[in-house]
């Protein structure tokens, strides 16, 4: 079900235009990075550590260097001071920052760490030569378990730190001890947000090439962040930023995995400059799974305090977050992105938040769709269900009792965020109606009464999130190294076409279509005449790129402001040409007309031509019609929604089946409802996948056991039901277009909905938690444990 809106007022915003970019994306007739072939290219292959933790005692590259087609073999000794990545978010003053070398020289810290690289004239020959490199490792104990890592006497991932504790941050809002002292009920639970492997369809790929006689190096890379990457590459390599041009060609998905600066990018740039030849590297899927950053991986100790009538008093959150072996771009900040969201949509007097980052000999973690907010939402939505169970209350009723009522907005919640708008009542009412809530509860009761081997559970998630990162000064206060602004330039060409230059960098989101719709409404030029330019620092020099559901929420504001500047200038031009005062000009759908004399008019296209010829423009006006804007957002935006899942659980086999899923989201004004629908569907699939299918597993020696898609299960369409979706619309009051983010909402909301449903199905058997993913074995074990007397 979709809620596509066909508008009759001629406005483009709100119209489900087909995506302009899909023709080339779906047919593949476009430039993915790996399609780029330059003469003289040297292909890079990486030799990765086969062990998680070891000293490198000897490395012999002579046979590889002598092999057919091999141009060079490099080890850490060749680049002793070159770092492979950098962390832009040192979250505390006393954080211990483990830096990742571009190539390891004396020791390796995770299975997948790079120990050598081969450059060869063909990719196949480069990979063949890897087999000829001989490395001797002196194994060290692998640090795999976060809690053991924090014990005294543990092996340390980085010996010079003397600890595996990366940082600890405690932020008390309100007085939790006082809140707890007033409580009738205190519920504690330990939730595990398992490690996930972000899996975009296109793996990482980079081509770095010196350009002709200039000093410029162009880097084509499958990234979400060409602008940020350019700055970081300049800082890490020492190459003048003006000589680095970063291009994100069409990018096949990211989900946070491409919000990163990677050692392969750094090495490609350095080698292209050193050798004067193009360097190309594309990872394989198995290589991706061990070397591209992972997501989630938190132990969450959660305590909630409430009165017997169900009033929530306070929440205590104690997290251990696995950093992996090194800090990458926002590794330590990722769990903290959820810090403000643990209270969810609920009012409470206290929130005590603690997070400890822990080093282990595993692939580094970093942002993955939702980044911190899925973990927070999982914790609060799970613990609220547990509280409802303890109190014997209907879980929806408990939520209604505690959530912020629609008339209470704007509402400053316990962590200090001011939610501008929201209507949890409306979204929940619609979801309950679409779901057939009462009928399913009746069926559940019947199955329980008959002892059906297939039990039914109803999972609830009433979530909100913060997106559109963020006012720059807020980011600065959080020790984040960059700002949160966004840029747009709109140029109207002499023939009346539009070049819209955005600093956002789409990798599947449909910006070319949605940005055209926004601009079209403002400047009155049809969407088909608008070209959106993005992802190339040569053509779009300013931007903060795409992540955190920020592109529309922040970038959309810049489009609006730039468009209004175009219209402002065009109005002066039109008034000059029509020989009236600018105050007497009306503008509608691309036409400037004189108030009271509509026959007297001109079009914005005609104005653009006049601005180009500049034969007759006002004395104090510059030629050409363009406008630009760099906007720092006033605040985050807070989309919300109510998701309901009907889960069938086969109590004999542990098999979980998602029977019905309803998602009612409120993302404010929808620019293109079809694109919103797509974001919701994809987000749901990803969040449901965490709950039911995905999970990275390591053995005791730190080897990734789920290093192929045979072991790491991703759902396909056939594993998911048809989602039932709808939207309520509560426009944001802090965002000029009334929009909020939608890129991550489905992922954030759906994971707890699924697990709440599974646990609800199994309550009669004494189960109060199921480890994710809710695989048959995990569910069966939870049942066995509960039946044998203990909770899971």
């Amino acid at each position: 079900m979709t809620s596509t809106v066909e508008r009759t007022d001629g406005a483009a915003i709100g119209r489900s235009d087909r995506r302009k970019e899909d023709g080339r994306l779906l047919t593949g007739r476009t430039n993915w990075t790996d399609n780029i072939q330059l003469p003289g290219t040297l292909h890079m292959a990486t030799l990765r550590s086969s062990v998680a933790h070891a000293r490198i005692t000897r490395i012999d590259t002579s046979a590889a260097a002598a092999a057919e087609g091999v141009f060079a073999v490099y080890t850490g000794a060749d680049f002793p001071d070159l770092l492979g990545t950098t962390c832009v978010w040192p979250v505390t003053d006393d954080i211990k920052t483990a830096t990742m070398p571009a190539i390891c020289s004396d020791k390796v810290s995770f299975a997948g760490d790079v120990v050598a690289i081969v450059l060869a004239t063909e990719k196949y020959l480069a990979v063949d030569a890897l087999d000829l490199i001989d490395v001797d490792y002196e194994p060290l104990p692998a640090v795999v378990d976060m809690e053991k890592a924090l014990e005294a006497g543990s092996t340390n991932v980085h010996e010079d730190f003397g600890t595996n504790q990366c940082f600890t941050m405690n932020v008390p809002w309100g007085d939790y001890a006082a809140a707890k002292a007033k409580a009738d009920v205190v519920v504690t639970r330990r939730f595990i947000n398992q490690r996930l492997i972000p899996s975009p369809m296109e793996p990482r790929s980079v081509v770095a090439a010196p350009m002709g006689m200039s000093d410029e190096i162009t880097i084509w890379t499958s990234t979400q962040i060409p602008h940020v990457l350019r700055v970081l590459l300049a800082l890490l390599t020492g190459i003048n930023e003006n000589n680095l041009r970063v291009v994100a060609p069409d990018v096949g998905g990211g989900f946070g995995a491409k919000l990163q600066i990677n050692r392969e990018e750094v090495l490609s740039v350095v080698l292209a400059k050193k050798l004067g030849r193009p360097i190309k590297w594309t990872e394989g899927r198995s290589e991706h799974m061990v070397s591209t950053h992972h997501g989630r991986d938190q132990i969450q100790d959660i305590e909630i305090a409430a009165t017997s009538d169900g009033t929530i008093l306070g929440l205590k959150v104690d997290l251990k977050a696995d950093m992996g072996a090194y800090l990458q771009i926002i590794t330590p900040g990722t769990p903290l992105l959820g810090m403000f969201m643990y209270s969810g949509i609920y009012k409470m007097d206290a929130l005590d938040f603690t997070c400890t980052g822990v080093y282990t000999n595993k692939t580094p973690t970093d942002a993955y769709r939702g980044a911190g907010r899925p973990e927070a939402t999982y914790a609060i939505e799970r613990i609220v269900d547990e509280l409802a169970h303890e109190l014997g209350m209907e879980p929806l009723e408990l939520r209604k009792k505690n959530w912020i009522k629609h008339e209470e907005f704007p509402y400053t919640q316990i962590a200090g965020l001011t939610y501008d708008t929201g209507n949890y009542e409306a979204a929940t009412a619609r979801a309950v109606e679409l779901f057939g809530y009462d009928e399913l509860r009746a069926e559940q009761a019947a199955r329980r009464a008959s002892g059906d081997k297939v039990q039914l559970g109803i999972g609830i998630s009433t979530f909100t999130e913060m997106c559109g990162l963020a006012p720059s000064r807020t980011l600065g206060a959080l020790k984040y190294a960059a700002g949160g602004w966004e840029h747009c330039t709109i140029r109207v060409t002499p023939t009346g076409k539009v070049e819209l230059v955005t600093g956002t960098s789409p990798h599947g989101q449909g910006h070319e279509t949605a940005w055209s719709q926004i601009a079209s409404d403002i400047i009155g030029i049809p969407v088909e005449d608008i070209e959106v330019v993005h992802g190339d620092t040569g053509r779009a020099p300013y931007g903060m790129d795409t992540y955190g559901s920020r592109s529309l929420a922040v970038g959309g504001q810049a489009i609006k402001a730039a468009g209004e500047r175009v219209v402002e200038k065009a109005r002066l031009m039109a008034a000059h040409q029509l020989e009236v005062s600018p105050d007497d000009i009306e503008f509608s759908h691309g036409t400037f007309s004189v108030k009271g004399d509509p026959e007297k008019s001109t079009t914005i296209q005609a104005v653009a031509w006049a601005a180009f010829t500049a034969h007759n423009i006002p004395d104090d006006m510059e030629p050409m019609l363009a406008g630009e804007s760099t906007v720092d957002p006033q605040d985050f935006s807070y989309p919300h929604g109510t998701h309901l899942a009907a889960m069938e659980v086969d109590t004999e086999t542990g098999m979980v089946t998602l029977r019905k899923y309803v998602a009612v989201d409120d993302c404010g004004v929808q620019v293109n409802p079809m694109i919103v629908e797509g974001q919701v569907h994809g987000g749901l699939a990803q969040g449901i996948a965490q709950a039911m299918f995905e999970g990275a597993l390591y053995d005791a020696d730190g080897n990734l056991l789920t290093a192929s898609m045979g072991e790491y299960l991703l759902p396909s369409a056939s594993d998911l039901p048809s989602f039932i979706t709808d939207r309520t619309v509560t426009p944001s009051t802090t965002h000029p277009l009334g929009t909020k983010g939608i890129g991550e909402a489905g992922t954030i909301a759906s994971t707890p909905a699924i697990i709440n449903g599974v646990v609800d199905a199994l309550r009669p058997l004494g189960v109060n938690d199921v480890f994710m993913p809710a695989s048959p074995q995990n569910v069966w074990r939870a049942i066995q444990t509960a039946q044998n007397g203990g909770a899971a």
Partner: protein
Amino acid sequence: MIPSAFDYVKAATVDEAVAALAEAGEDAKVLGGGQSLLPVLRLRLNAPTVLVDVSGIDEMRSVADEGGSLLIGAAVTTYEVMNDAGIKASVPLLAQTAGLVADPAIRHRGTFGGSCTHADPAGDLPTVARALDAEFVIAGPGGRRTVGASDFFVDYFTTAVGPDEVLVGVRVPKLDGWGAHYEKFHRTAQAWAIVGVAAAVKVEGGSITGARIALTNVGPTPVRASSVEAALVGGPATVEAITAAAQNAADGTSPTSDTHAAADFRTHLAKVLTGRAVAKAAGL
């Protein structure tokens, strides 16, 4: 990943394939649909020097009706097994199971013979062959020989087919008047079976008069559930009797633990799923 270099020989006849293998020596591998072999090569788990492609050999691409049995060419694709009118009519268990193998793309490339000779313990089609006592026609330098299913599957990824031999076809008996069902337990549509059960039963006058049952992924090879069969035959075709008989399903199994399931869970599943497979085969 990308494979090491290898030579490629496309054989037009079985004799040509056998000759090519003899010439290449023990580092040669037979290539059917490539759905198991190519991932092995790309992950560099194996590096054969010669691939002998048998997918275009006419004799191996057809299904022959021999009266009481069907001789299914080893290079017949899984998709063709799924849709072949003769197989659907006479060995519906095989057609049903073929439809549960992996995904449509793999079913169109992968072959029945390839699945059997690859002998992955998680493969579905070998289990059906074992349950039905299929016969395997193997060609080698010394001519042709026939091996029964009980001797064909030797160990993990190991069959009776020698390095210089080619599996030509699989003879599957028709089971007229039998009910059959393959119960595949897996987490996503494309995933391997955690446990699978192939069951064929004959029900006459409310009693089970014949039973053929084999299990997937509970040992190094497909495991014939002989003690379940013995417990079923002569008993009533009721859910209760079948469930009781299925408690013997773990006999003869030696399940291993992997990322999807530990051995004890596989043992539990073997019993539950055997009961369900037999009940469905019996029309209950």
